[in-house]
């Protein structure tokens, strides 16, 4: 299926939950959706015989000027088509439902997005830092991140 067909079919099923489709040559086509029913959307994308997105290639966060975004890269091995979902969250309370029960691989991806951007994934089985130490403060890939002066008594600056 092309990105446009995927978008139209999702739009007919979820209506206002699906916000927009962006297709240009520079980027992979992506669909912006609302965060409230993300798990249902993902379940349809995985189980519908027209979609069959059985493989979540990547999940990551983005820090845009006005919002924090979660990006889902999906790929269908049997049907050989792909789509990108984006969920925009406000910066004050960046939380979205976990898709760990849809694709198991989302577990560590969501932990990484939490670690680097501070995005809270609700109902995640084990949402703790994955890359930085457990007692690290702040989320390093946020644009407003200030690196600490020392960690456990070791100076960090060059």
């Amino acid at each position, binding site marked *: 299926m092309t990105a446009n067909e995927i978008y139209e079919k999702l739009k007919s099923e979820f209506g206002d939950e699906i916000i927009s489709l962006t297709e240009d040559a520079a980027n992979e086509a992506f669909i912006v959706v609302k965060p409230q029913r993300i798990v249902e959307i993902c379940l349809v994308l995985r189980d519908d015989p027209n979609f069959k997105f059985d493989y979540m290639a990547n999940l990551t966060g983005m820090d845009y000027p006005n919002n924090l975004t979660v990006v889902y890269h999906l790929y269908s091995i049997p049907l050989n088509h792909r789509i990108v979902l984006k969920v925009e969250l406000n910066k004050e309370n960046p939380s979205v439902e976990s898709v760990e029960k849809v694709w198991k691989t989302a577990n560590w991806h969501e932990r990484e997005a939490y670690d680097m951007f501070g995005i809270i994934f609700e109902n995640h089985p084990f949402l703790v830092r994955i*890359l*930085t*130490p457990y007692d690290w403060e702040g989320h*390093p890939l946020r644009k407003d*991140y200030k*690196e*600490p002066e*020392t*960690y*456990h*008594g*070791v*100076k*960090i*600056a*060059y």
Partner: protein
Amino acid sequence: MGLLNRLDDPIQGDGIILGTVEDLLNWGRSKSDWYLQFGLACCAIEFMALNAAHFDMMRFGAIPRTSPRQADFIIVSGTVTLKMADRIKTLYEQMSEPRYVMSMGSCANTGGPYWEHGYHVVKGVDRLIPVDVYVPGCPPRPEAFFEGLVKLQKMISTQAIFRKREKMSAEDLAALELRNKKIQEYNERAAQENIEFTNAKHVGYSRYSLDFLNKGEQS
């Protein structure tokens, strides 16, 4: 095998070599320095090549040990992240003295490409443990590493075992005395205030050790 040749010499050799016990011990020590089997990042790939047949690190008498308690020196081969820093300190503390540290590659020396934006990288492993030999490169060629290893062997073979203080340079002696004085002060303060100075544990014989004490004072 110069020693054996001298023993076997048909004219001069009658089974006697004159020398000091210290020289003999150091000769043995420098030719059998065992290292901790420990790799960190991409330098560890080069480090594995060192161990394999082509470069054959064992010809220098260097044998990998899987326990720090059996190792003479540790090779910090790669990027030292802050998460790893505590573990490296622990490994170094578990090694028995005399112990040596080789810093392999730009990351372990100075932080390498992470020097500016590496919020998670220790900018040089000498901020954690005293380093004896630095090997530059990204990663170093095996030949470069072997030059570092030979330098370490030379360092070991000229090291004082007996009457250390008499053979120390004035600079090192002053540093050692200052270190002992500071440790004493720390211990007294710790006993009075019932606190533990964690950084005082990491003091070795190197003059760089003073940095750790100073850091301990700040924190």
